[in-house]
């Protein structure tokens, strides 16, 4: 909330203001994820299990698609910390989602180097193509469009991340086609990170 008489503080925007509404279905790790979790926890001192909260949440998100109150409860129990401790972390970091996202989470880098190379026009093209504004998911649940801050591949601007995959040098004119290709063929159409691609 704002104490300024005229300027409203954008409460929906700041990450610390996000709330968790979804209790979700009952949640426990699958056997595979549980085994993975037990491997990860060994990296930290035995009395510092809390350190594993980020990887533990990633596992939960991979299993369920997004983080629910029940997932938070499970992670908190495994780590021996309170649910508030876990929710504190979930609400802070931008890569955890507390609502379901589309099959393809399209993340357009909007920071300076990408913007200088046409990232705003990529967002414009995607908005027109998908019929949704940044922050929204389309009716069919296929695409979620969001703008993100610098992804760290500024020499290949504009950069777009789709789920965990990268697509570089995306021209505004090609953005609509990329969405069609994603729908038809899935993540294989992404260019990948050029450093990785060049080693093939």
């Amino acid at each position, binding site marked *: 909330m704002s104490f300024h008489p005229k300027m409203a503080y954008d409460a929906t925007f700041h990450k610390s203001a996000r709330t968790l509404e979804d209790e979700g279905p009952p949640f426990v790790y699958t056997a595979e994820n549980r085994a993975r979790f037990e491997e990860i926890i060994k990296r930290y001192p035995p009395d510092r299990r809390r350190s594993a909260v980020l990887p533990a949440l990633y596992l939960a998100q991979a299993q369920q698609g997004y983080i629910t109150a029940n997932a938070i409860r499970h992670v908190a129990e495994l780590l021996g910390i309170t649910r508030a401790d876990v929710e504190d972390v979930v609400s802070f970091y931008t890569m955890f989602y507390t609502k379901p996202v589309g099959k393809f989470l399209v993340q357009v880098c909007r920071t300076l180097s990408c913007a200088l190379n046409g990232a705003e026009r990529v967002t414009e093209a995607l908005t027109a193509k998908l019929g949704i504004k940044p922050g929204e998911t389309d009716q069919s649940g296929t695409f979620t469009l969001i703008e993100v801050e610098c992804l760290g591949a500024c020499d290949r601007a504009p950069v777009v*991340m789709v789920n965990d995959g990268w697509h570089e040098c995306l021209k505004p004119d090609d953005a609509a086609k990329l969405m069609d290709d994603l729908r038809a063929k899935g993540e294989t159409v992404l260019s990948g990170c050029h*450093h990785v691609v060049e080693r093939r």
Partner: protein
Amino acid sequence: MDPILIKHVRERNSFTLDFYLQHEGYKALKTALTRKPDEIIEMVKASGLRGRGGAGFPTGMKWQFVDKKIEPRYIACNADESEPGTFKDHLLMERNPHLLVEGCAIGCYAIGAKVAYIYIRGEFLHVQGVLEQAIAEAYAGGFLGKNILGSGFDCDVYVHRGAGAYEAGEETALLESLEGKRAQPRNKPPFPALVGLYNKPTAVNNVETLCNVPLVVAKGAEWFAQLGPEKNGGPKLYCVSGHVKRPGVYEASMQITLRELIEGYAGGVRDGRTLKAVIPGGSSVPIMMPDQLDTQASFDAIQKAGSLLGSAAIIVLDDTTCMVWLAENLLHFYRHESCGKCTPCREGTDWLHKILRRIERGEGQMRDLDLLSSISANIGGKTLCAFGDAAVTPVTTTLKHFRHEYEAHIKEGRCTLHADWRARQPVGAHA
């Protein structure tokens, strides 16, 4: 200067242990293990190696400050690389990961740590895969784990992936995040060298810094120091992006000038446009003007010229760039990334962004310019970490050099420089 750190990055298999061993890999670690830890620290001090993450603090000093009386000690490698315009660590980790692993092991040996955590940013999932593969190979080759190369020295290296927070690149915020909390900075002092991860002595070093350590050990402090100007030794990676013909990572001695980097390596400003301004060290540093291009791209020379080398992320702006738009773009970033711990930064960045947005849209008033300066003065220097100073820099520096553009927006009631690479209609953050 021929590339050293990224010499082989374009070659096939440059990320594998076999390739690394064929190119004198892990020889520095072998050498290091025959010396006393204190000798390694003295060597790094003598080399003049300075932190490559942004502050340029001498690495040897940092290691010396680590409290050697308290066990256990840690190395936290800062691979959170989030400064807009920076992508050098990304390249190093993907294409030369063993160099970082070797640097971590030598660093651990020097300060007497047994564990190093490499904190990578959440978006670098593909980097995590490459790093973890390299670490597994290093364990199998006997370069990590118990009794490394028969020396009796034990060292473990783990990758810890963040989850999208620029602030995690601040050293104490990184430690908080590593402890499983929000990435918010701690009060300093005490510095991490005394009270760091899990309240134990910790050295927090950037990826490129640790990658330079094997060079110092293998080829000697003198060799390293003479590669660059005084107190700016060693090879340096520069990230050039923006309106240039060939953006990319370039390795050079810090004797190089900004002009050589931009006009030589990166091919100059593209599309026949002219240069308007340069951001020499990532979005958090003051702008430099075209008449300053002959400045040496070293920590000291750039600081003398009124800016900072920072993470050596050179963002080139051509004459189609509206500087009010630029400030708005960057303040959107800082407003989003402010961790919210200190009030001046949390509230102030939001206000700065709102005012910049209305000026950019042509709805500003002349008194807004004083308001911008006033808010900036109330954020800079009034926060726990350097984020506050970084966040106001785009505003103060554009106001200083391009006040006439702000005034033109206000007088004409519109953006006076609308480039074709910008949105036709306000979208997303601009809507």
